[in-house]
């Protein structure tokens, strides 16, 4: 099983836009990915409601897990997404 531990980089945490971007990316991945915080139960990463319920904030450590072909590459790109501050990439047009 492939595993990545990553610290959430987005200022607003794994909420709102960052959560939507992450869940959409996980949903498009070729393998089933789970995400968990600490010792809590892992939840499907393609489930917006479950990911929001993690309540992960900026600086929270989360663990991604996946099995099968492409798991390593998938987790690399998802971990990279989580580590970035997606809020800061928000265009300042409002």
């Amino acid at each position: 099983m492939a595993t990545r531990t990553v610290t959430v980089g987005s200022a607003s945490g794994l909420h709102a836009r960052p959560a939507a971007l992450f869940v959409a990316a996980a949903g498009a991945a070729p393998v089933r990915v789970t995400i968990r915080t600490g010792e809590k139960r892992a939840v499907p990463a393609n489930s917006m409601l479950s990911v929001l319920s993690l309540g992960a904030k900026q600086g929270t450590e989360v663990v991604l897990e996946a099995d099968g072909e492409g798991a390593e590459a998938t987790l690399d790109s998802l971990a990279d997404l989580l580590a970035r501050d997606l809020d800061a990439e928000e265009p300042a047009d409002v």
Partner: protein
Amino acid sequence: MSEPAGPAPLHGIGVSPGLAGGPVLRVAPVPPLPAPVPVTDPDAEADRAVAALREVVAELTRRADRSGEKTLVDVLRAQAMMADDPVLLDAVREHVLAGTDAPHAVDAAFATHRAAFEAAGGYLAERVADLDDLRDRAVAVCLGRPMPGVPSPGHRYVLTAWDLAPADTVDLDPEQVVALVTESGGPTSHTAILARALGLPAVVACSGARDLVDGTVVLVDGTTGAVRVDVDPDELAAAETAERERRTAVAATSGPGRTADGHPVALLANIGAARDLAAADGAEGVGLFRTELLFLDRTREPELAEQAEAYREVFAALAGRRVVIRTLDAGADKPLPFLHQTDEPNPALGVRGLRLVRERPELLRTQLAAIARAAEQTGADVWVMAPMVATRAEAAQFADAVHEAGLPKAGVMVEVPAAALRAGQLLEVVDFLSIGTNDLSQYTFAADRQSGVLAELLDPWQPALLRLIAEVGTAGRAAGKPVGVCGEAAADPLLAPVLVGLGMTSLSMSGRSLAPVRAALAARTYADCERLARLALAADDAERARKAVA
């Protein structure tokens, strides 16, 4: 034999002028869950439940595609993802296969996540309303009813409702909605403000509006407050032609605001962001630039550079003209997540507007620095004012902060009767005053702005309100400093000459209201305005004040 009379017209308070008609459609109510029914074909029932959720996803996606507003698109897409959640869909199927009917299965599946969100608190607890909205939509589809909220039938119609919430206004498509009629609400309700911003005729506090059946053709007169029922097509067409002619005539007046004898009255626009400037084309400047938009839905305070950029965009478009920018007016009906304000029993009487600065002085410092930076880079004549000021000491403190930031013009809003009564003392320490009539009404009459039942107390024609405005006008004349109105009262073409007669030197309103107000002022001399002001002040009540002037 006389013709059979049609149904009697309905009457309410006209809050946004103009004439428009069409078939009525109601804001669809949230359907209550009916009693559970036994499931005979679980597979078909599960498909029905899942199809309902898919329909909700499709509707939210359509709305996102139609909306040009980036923030709104993000919100709608995130909501669509919640309704499209594979864990949720699995749970719905499981509930149905265990014998629950589709609407109850949807309800049960959402209930699990609702409880989790509520237990988590903070940001997630605030999203519970989103979950409820999604559930209500899916349940309505299961029951074969329209999704709750503002309809989007793809043709022009008159929207009726008990009252409109700010959230409804997000869904309102001005290409389809031609007029608004609400059973409740008052002249300062969200419905009224929205209607004026969109230039839609609107009637509020209209008894009988919610009994109108969908499809009934009505003609709405937002000037008089009359709503004619069962109007025939010829009559509707004639009314629309007359309305077009009226609008053309009004739009033909242009140039700076002045009375018939040339007394200048600055006609300014109220805006919330640079994009509102398009509708404010004929304005001499901006009399109220609300800065809350930048702060809404933010989990942290926007940084100096981001603020400066947003302000610069507005200032740059107004080079050479006046821009009155209001510092953050949060609290009360505009709570901001990053402020983490504690619950107050009476938020409207609590820590809001400038009062926030007592606990968070850095908020004001950062905002003023951002304004100063933006002003430096542009040629606009930038004036800065504070909301919710009650005393001379507060005004003096604010003026000091503005001057320390390197900005020349400091003013305060008059929204609290205490400030109106001491306008002369305030003008000793600030350069100008601007009256927010909506809040000044609410605080003078101890009547909630959103209350439909108390609408008559919130009528801007109330002589007690006019008396407070007169206090400010007198103080302004004595000090030789500008005093204006930036509340919704300034947008009433009948009231505008009265306000000028009371001593107002500027009127600020949503862009679409400028032309009718300009035309109304051009038709009166300054002496007329003063006479009308005396008549209105002397009236016994709002209704008589209006009649005395009309």
